[in-house]
């Protein structure tokens, strides 16, 4: 009962943040007018601004946060690593390489782009895990992080090579996108991201009990009837799919997957089904709030979304790192 009330409260906070994100901007709109405009009532200009610009932007931010939050929760549990998250593991970087390569080859539809990202992300996580194993196993969470950072650095270099012949404008766009942004949101992008987030989220919720078991370690997982190697492989692939879709839609938004699961655990959630669901909700709220900060911090300029989440995430990362040792 207490937990239900808590989560209703959290959902209300996320809703308020989303309405605030729609209300604030170059033309401020009152909260009532926002709700009227979403329903299609009121001043036609306001309706147009809300329905074609701000609402899809807020929806995209919510979806990016939900996807990254769930991917982070699943990765932390399955890897038994409190520092794991798509950006630090190089998964997002791999996804970015896939997306940039697809665009460079002239393919950028709503099907090709996320799939190209997914291919890059899956490859990146496989390489990061192999590098970690080669350098002394996954027992020390910091080894895997180091492997992820190496993979991320390689991904950056690959992107620079891919962009070396591109026109200056394309380079500028690509760099902006690599710092994460939901500014160019449209309903098409929000629509397909919603499909991927729903699909990936449902699969993770289905596997959530296996993640509970995996978080006990390989031998205990085997003792409880879970094939750790096979089960964690599927979880890594789903987390890679979720991260890849968010990268294809909004670029590299780091640290959300790191911070959000810890926030959910601090609310007393332990089992992964509730943890993943809570991470979707809190992740959504966190990214919509970060986008609000990105627009409000230095108007009329906008900060890159990824810069805002990194400014929040890096100190948090350091606190977690200290707790490990």
């Amino acid at each position: 009962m207490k937990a239900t009330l808590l989560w209703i409260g959290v959902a209300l906070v996320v809703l308020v943040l989303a309405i605030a994100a729609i209300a604030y901007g170059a033309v401020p709109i009152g909260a009532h007018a926002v709700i009227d405009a979403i329903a299609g009532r009121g001043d036609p200009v306001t309706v147009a601004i809300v329905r074609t610009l701000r609402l899809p932007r807020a929806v995209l931010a919510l979806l990016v946060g939900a996807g990254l939050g769930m991917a982070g929760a699943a990765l932390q549990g399955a890897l038994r690593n409190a520092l794991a998250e798509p950006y630090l593991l190089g998964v997002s970087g791999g996804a970015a390489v896939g997306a940039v390569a697809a665009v460079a080859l002239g393919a950028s539809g709503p099907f090709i782009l996320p799939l190209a990202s997914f291919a890059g992300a899956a490859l990146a996580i496989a390489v990061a895990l192999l590098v970690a194993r080669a350098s002394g196993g996954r027992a020390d969470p910091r080894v895997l992080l180091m492997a992820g950072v190496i993979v991320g650095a390689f991904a950056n270099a690959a992107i620079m090579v891919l962009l070396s012949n591109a026109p200056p404008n394309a380079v500028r766009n690509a760099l902006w996108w690599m710092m994460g942004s939901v500014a160019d949101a449209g309903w098409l992008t929000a629509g397909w991201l919603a499909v991927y987030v729903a699909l990936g989220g449902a699969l993770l919720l289905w596997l959530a009990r296996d993640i509970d078991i995996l978080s006990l370690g390989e031998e205990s997982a085997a003792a409880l009837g879970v094939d750790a190697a096979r089960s964690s492989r599927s979880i890594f692939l789903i987390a890679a799919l979720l991260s890849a879709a968010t990268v294809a839609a909004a670029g590299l938004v780091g640290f959300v997957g790191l911070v959000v699961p810890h926030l959910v655990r601090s609310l007393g959630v332990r089992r992964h089904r509730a943890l993943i669901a809570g991470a979707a909700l809190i992740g959504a709220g966190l990214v919509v709030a970060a986008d609000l900060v990105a627009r409000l911090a230095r108007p009329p300029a906008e900060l890159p979304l990824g810069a805002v989440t990194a400014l929040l995430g890096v100190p948090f990362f350091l606190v977690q790192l200290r707790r490990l040792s």
Partner: protein
Amino acid sequence: MIDFDRVVIRYPRAAVAAVNVVSFSAMRGAVTAVVGPNGSGKSTLVRALLKLAPLASGSIAIDGVDLAHLDRRALARRAAVVSQRESLVFPLPVWEYVALGRHPHEDPWAAAPARTDGAIAGALDRAGITALGDRTTDELSGGEWQRVRIARALAQGGEALVLDEPTTFLDIAHEMSMFELFAQLAKDGMAVLLVSHQLNLVARFADTIVLLHRGRVAAAGTPADVMRASVLEEVYEWPLLITRDPAVGAPALLPLRNRGPRSPSQSS
């Protein structure tokens, strides 16, 4: 009951088999102890029971069913294994942790059925830790944590319990009460298979001892059969004396000072 029948296990790239034609049975209602020097193949047998080390030949059967015909979940419902070490990165309430023992019985979408609560409470009770249900795993002492892990294994509901060096980090009182718990679980009808280095406690509490040496059974039988100085000196490569435990009359081992030039060779 767990039956090992001419089991051979070879690790990839290893010259000699880690387990080389080992046969013995862990019966219901009895404590069966597997002992032997480091690297003698004890933990490999446990990994084989978890299907983590494939058999090169031979077979393992649980209650008459070959392991090869059991999938992991079916296996987990019949035999529970408490591995040597386990640490949680994200602490759990004890009750939730023990509830994970019901995982092999759960269908992924089903809500927890009421009898699950009964199974968890029963497991906590049999492990003697009902009072710990509301604590979190990071607040437990070493001995409490081992009991909580055993409770999780009991919650799995099988008739076989396998424990890999369960008392390694425990003080005398916790170690003794742990062995008494194993004896009680065996008396209640479980097949308890125990891997241990504690020869003297094993001699007191086990019904059958299997002594492994370089992957083979060097001796097997009652404590009196196995706890003989000639056998143990040969296997452990250390001079020792067998006396009688003055309290219960079981054979007891006393390692001596090594007067000769011998030192334990690295067989692992």
